[in-house]
């Protein structure tokens, strides 16, 4: 894969930030601060208001700038980079439309608590409010979808604001932060200190759990007969996968993960029940309904997880560990709330818990597993979508970073790929953003050049951001794009079939879909098509061998396949529909 910085001129002036205060332009201060914060990749798009910054980037050599083709995709790429690496994703765009185009990407990151720092250009301070060319009140627009945002009004504040932005984005419950930079702030001179200190007196997330609460929680778990751990994205964001695995294994407690928590607990372990929720496994949903103590770890009781709240885990006492106090008691009342960092709280509970007696409980769970395992239908002449995911799981040995769009393929990917590693399933869970998958996969590939990255997408979602093929080809990103092509908006079609009398209103793409192979080839990507299982395996093997450009695989799957199990909207978790009636 080509290094993003290869496109710059080759003078090796490696400027290290000086320890003493020096005077620089705002653009210089920003670049120095970014380097000092170990930013290695920026996803950006230039424009009038950020010209001073791009001029500065022309000289710099230890930050790779990836020129994306659209700011929305750039924000998704930075998001994918952040989810795959754990480091904050960085975006630079211009004022006005540059900023507004990032909105979907920022909202996506906000819903899934992904650390992003987005720098937007702004018209010069004396023109703000005048409806100047390419002016938009981006601070106002993004206020509800950022963890915090700033408008820099004094070049002397720029360094501190930048450091604060990274601190806020990455600490506590992570999230996107936007910094709006008027053009005159980038041009005028100010001081760069290089001091690492960040102090925000009003911001101090609680990390350590309350010891009395931990004690109570441990006692409750020790006395449980049917305990269950419900692990969410917080386990991945808080890097608590080892702690979770150790605890679940030591005390033999079953673990179900949310969509965002996939990979936070290895699915090959016997304690894993897979995913719960609307398209969760039968046994995970039954266990959630029947358990007597539910330990929620970094999860937020989302409606796609709980189903009808009245029927959600009605017999259990609940313990909830979360770093964000607003998540606790928001949707579901809990007996023992613990505000804190899951990585610190889990080992404390682990230490104090006496392994509960769970043989009967496990027997019940095993019975559920036998009764209704996840089904992978196979067919000689066609490709079953579930089989497609299984084949990808096999060809990558479960070692790939899997990135999805939103819809049926997303749920099948979540169900049928065996996730054993954290930061390996990247998907827009909260906002459900179609068009997320491919650019996020590209961002993940930039962040983790040594790991295989597979984007499982749909024919609908891929078309929302397919233009980034140009970027992936330019930077020789060896990314595998597997299109689950059912010639329709699968999940919309499924709902129309089940709940709207098969009235397929505007959900069939058969007539409008491009020839994906030709499309990809026109950008310079490799591309293959498969229409049956045998071809699919051949295509996958050929694709995995290509390492110098993106590969698009057009897998023609059965269009009318539905995704099960499914908890219909408004039903309780145990009222799953298991197959076509």
């Amino acid at each position, binding site marked *: 894969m080509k290094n993003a910085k290869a496109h710059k001129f080759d003078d090796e002036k490696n400027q290290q930030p000086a320890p003493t205060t020096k005077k620089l332009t705002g653009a210089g201060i920003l670049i120095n601060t970014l380097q000092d914060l170990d930013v290695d990749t920026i996803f950006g798009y230039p424009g009038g208001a950020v010209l001073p910054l791009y001029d500065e980037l022309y000289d710099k050599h230890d930050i790779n700038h990836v020129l994306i083709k659209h700011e929305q995709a750039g924000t998704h790429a930075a998001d994918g980079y952040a989810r795959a690496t754990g480091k904050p994703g960085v975006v630079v765009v211009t004022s006005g439309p540059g900023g507004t185009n990032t909105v979907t990407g920022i909202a996506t990151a906000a819903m899934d608590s992904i650390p992003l720092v987005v720098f937007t250009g702004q018209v010069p301070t004396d023109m703000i409010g005048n409806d100047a060319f390419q002016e938009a009140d981006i*601070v*106002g627009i993004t*206020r*509800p979808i950022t*963890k*915090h*945002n*700033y*408008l820099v009004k004094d070049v002397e504040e720029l360094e501190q604001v930048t450091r604060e932005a990274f601190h*806020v984005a990455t600490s506590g419950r992570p999230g996107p932060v936007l910094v709006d930079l008027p053009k005159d702030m980038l041009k005028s001179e100010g001081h760069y200190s290089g001091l690492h200190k960040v102090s*925000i*007196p*009003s*911001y101090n997330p609680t990390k350590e759990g309350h010891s009395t609460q931990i004690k109570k929680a441990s006692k409750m778990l020790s006395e449980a007969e049917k305990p269950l751990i419900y692990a969410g994205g917080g386990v991945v964001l808080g890097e608590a996968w080892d702690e979770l695995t150790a605890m679940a294994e030591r005390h033999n407690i079953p673990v179900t993960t949310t969509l965002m928590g996939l990979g936070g607990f290895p699915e090959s372990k016997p304690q894993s029940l897979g995913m719960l929720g609307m398209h969760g496994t039968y046994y995970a949903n039954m266990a959630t309904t029947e358990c007597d103590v539910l330990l929620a770890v970094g999860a937020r009781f989302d409606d796609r997880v709980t189903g009808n709240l009245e029927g959600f885990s009605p017999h259990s006492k609940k313990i909830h560990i979360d770093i*964000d*106090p*607003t998540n606790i*008691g*928001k949707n579901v009342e809990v007996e023992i709330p613990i505000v804190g960092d899951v990585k610190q709280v889990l080992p404390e509970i682990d230490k104090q818990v006496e392994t509960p007696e769970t043989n009967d409980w496990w027997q019940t769970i095993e019975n559920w597993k036998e009764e209704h395992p996840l089904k992978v239908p196979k067919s000689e002449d066609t490709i079953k979508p579930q089989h497609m995911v299984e084949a990808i799981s096999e060809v990558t040995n479960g070692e790939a970073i899997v990135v999805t769009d939103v819809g049926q393929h997303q749920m099948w990917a979540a169900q049928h790929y065996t996730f054993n590693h954290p930061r390996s399933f990247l998907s827009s869970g909260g906002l459900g953003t179609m068009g997320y998958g491919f650019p996020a996969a590209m961002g993940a590939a930039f962040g983790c050049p040594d790991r295989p990255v597979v984007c499982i997408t749909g024919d609908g979602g891929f078309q929302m951001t397919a233009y980034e093929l140009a970027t992936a080809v330019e930077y020789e990103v060896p990314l595998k794009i597997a299109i689950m092509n059912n010639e329709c908006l699968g999940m919309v079609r499924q709902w129309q079939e089940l709940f709207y009398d098969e009235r397929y209103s505007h959900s069939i793409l058969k007539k409008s879909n491009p020839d994906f192979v030709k499309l990809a080839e026109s950008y310079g990507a490799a591309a293959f098509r498969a229409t049956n299982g045998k071809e699919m395996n051949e295509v996958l093997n050929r694709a995995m061998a290509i390492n110098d450009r993106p590969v698009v695989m057009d897998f023609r799957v059965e269009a009318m396949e539905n995704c099960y199990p499914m908890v219909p909207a408004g039903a309780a978790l145990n009222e799953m529909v298991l197959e076509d009636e």
Partner: protein
Amino acid sequence: MSTQNGTQTKSDKHTLSVVVKYNLNALSRIIGIFSSKGFEIDSISFGSGKESGQARITITTHGDEQIIEQITKQLHKIIDVVTVTDLTYDSFVERELALVKVKADSAARSEIMQITQVFRAKVIDISPDRLAIEITGNADKINAFIGMVRPFGIIELARTGSVALKREFEGDV
């Protein structure tokens, strides 16, 4: 609403005192929490604190315990918010200011001025057929005053909303 000592009080009324790092973005974020999450503001007052760098915002709102808890937590979550205090559970002093312009011809004038005296309010402007009155107190007192002068005809009314501070003296006497 419940009736206590002859006055109507909202039983789920809460007075929140919020100290923020002074900037308008912070005020916007606070109001945004209420509008986007469906909470209600009964009154809000914002004292600019440009010099000290901090501002105190007093919000009166209402809702059951769970709603108030969410409001408090959500406010806390705003990076620029330094403290959130729900004064409802403490002893606190609360004041509101209202300016009331009342129709007052020579026949009605003295009666209105009597009422004004009873409420320890002040006449601040006078013209042949109008009186402007300034009154401070808690919301109940102001409501009662407005109720008393309404029959004369209120021409204009400006109310500030509550400002409040926790009472320092808490010992038994």
